């Protein structure tokens, strides 16, 4: 396979993934977590059974890596308010108690393993820093939310 035809396959596989799967995942945060979960932590290679039936493993790996980098970039460039909103909605869909979720994320920092492998240190640290601030904002909301409206905290502005 020539480099050009391989690149064309990677683009096609990436488009396929975006159309069939990623278009149904609305938030960049969810896309980042999903794409990071397709990566084997021992090897750094990405796997996707559906795509593997049509493309070579090498092409699938590169297509997933491209999409992963794109989702990372989208999340990185999201304003802090938007990131807080994404995290609040993500917590809502996770079927976990918000307090437990925030405590676990603060302690384990799972977002650290969700970045693409070739991310430079400053960029990664910037996103981690934003996660840390977003978690602090969500935690502050949790501590001040009225007991009668348990879900209202998700949609507060910081001033509330």
């Amino acid at each position, binding site marked *: 396979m020539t480099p050009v035809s391989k690149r064309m396959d990677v683009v096609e596989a990436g488009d396929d993934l975006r159309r069939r799967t990623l278009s149904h995942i609305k938030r960049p945060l969810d896309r980042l977590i999903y794409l990071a979960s397709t990566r084997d932590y021992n090897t750094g290679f990405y796997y996707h059974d559906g795509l593997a039936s049509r493309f070579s493993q090498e092409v699938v790996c590169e297509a997933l890596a491209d999409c992963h980098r794109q989702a990372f970039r989208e999340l*990185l*460039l999201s*304003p*802090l308010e938007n990131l807080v909103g994404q995290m609040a909605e993500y917590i809502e869909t996770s079927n976990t108690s918000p307090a437990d979720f925030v405590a676990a994320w603060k302690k384990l920092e799972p977002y650290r393993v969700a970045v693409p492998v070739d991310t430079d240190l*400053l960029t990664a640290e910037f996103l981690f820093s934003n996660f840390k601030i977003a978690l602090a*904002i969500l935690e502050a909301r949790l501590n001040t939310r009225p007991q009668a409206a348990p879900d209202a905290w998700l949609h507060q502005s*910081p001033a509330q």
Partner: protein
Amino acid sequence: MISPMIQLILTFLVVIGVFVALYFLSRRPQPAGGSESLLEGRAALNALQRELLPPEMLDRIFSKVDHEYVSQDASAAVQGLFLKERRKIALSWAHELQEQILSLRRFHLGSARFYARLSVRTEIKLALQFLSLLFLCRVLRGLFFVRGAYGAPRVVGYAVAASARICSISENAMSFLKAAELDSVSENPQRTPMLL
């Protein structure tokens, strides 16, 4: 009889002196050149253009929107955390900028003049630009440390503009290089490309 003898001794001493000088000159460290400094220069240019200087990235790091959003928060603890985190990132950014500019300067010192045949005037201008930018980076780090990430917007602007100018000059100096040649050097460092 004495005079020719003195002359002989003096000539002998001069010859020894020349040999000693040649010996030390040959041992003097040469400026980094060749493929290594070229790759370092290209990597620094990539880091500057793709990671440190893109406007969208700078907008995020020094975003007033984020600052205003967090400033609305009643919690002083969250505001304190935000300012602390942003200061840490701004310091890392200034440090990284300084490191990449130093790498580019090493490239120019080591090899740019051989490849691009810069004029003396351009070289002096470039040296002054490097000097002022490195000074700006130090000032920025001091300002970020004392006043936080939002304490020096103008100096950030100056540093970004100066860095962009240096990137443009460096890019011109490297423009004759094709990506394929760089790839072949990185894959096989033993091989020296034709242009080198």
